[in-house]
């Protein structure tokens, strides 16, 4: 049931985001519902933010292989569609 929600991710924004909430439960490295309800002040100290980008900046381009070995270039979506990027791993 919860995984079936993930199938809707690319079809519906709301369903997709809901699916991400489920995904966050499925992957132990992601936050729990409880964590999502916490305010920033309630949260344990986070690691130093090492990102080199900020809101309003042009998104740094990348060209990465998909699971079929095909290159996916972020900038190819520019002017076409917004991109919802999720970084993570199985563990």
């Amino acid at each position, binding site marked *: 049931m919860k995984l079936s929600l993930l199938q809707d991710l690319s079809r519906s924004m709301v369903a997709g*985001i809901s699916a991400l909430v489920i995904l966050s439960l499925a992957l132990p490295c992601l936050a729990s519902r409880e964590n999502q309800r916490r305010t920033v002040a309630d949260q344990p100290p986070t690691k130093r933010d090492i990102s080199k980008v900020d809101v309003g900046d042009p*998104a740094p381009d990348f060209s990465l292989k998909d699971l079929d070995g095909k290159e*996916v270039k972020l900038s190819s979506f520019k002017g076409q569609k917004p991109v919802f990027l999720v970084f993570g791993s199985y563990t």
Partner: protein
Amino acid sequence: MVFLIVYVKEAHSSDNPGSGNLAQAVAKVEQATGKEIAEAAGPQPEIARHQTFEDRSKAAHSCKAGLDLELPFVLDNMENTTGSTYGGFPDRIYVISNEGKIHYKGEPGPYGFNPVQAEESLKELLK
């Protein structure tokens, strides 16, 4: 709207001797959320640190199959270039506007990983 999962190095590889190993991560999840939620996540995968790009690809395939995801995955390179640029490790959400600019930058995970907040940002972008 394009959804992309950028698969980065394992957050809790099975061979990590430090505080980031899987057993300790599971214990933390249980402690933070209660055993019921931790158990709902199911058995946890054991994946060693990626030594090669093929290892990373196998791990991503395993993730996609294990969670029955149809979302497109891309693999960060072994230098973790994209993950480093975006500060994407261990997990993080960004929303990029149609114009190619950062519209939403989530806090680093695990505590800052907040799909609900990202959803609000996305709704605002699509108004």
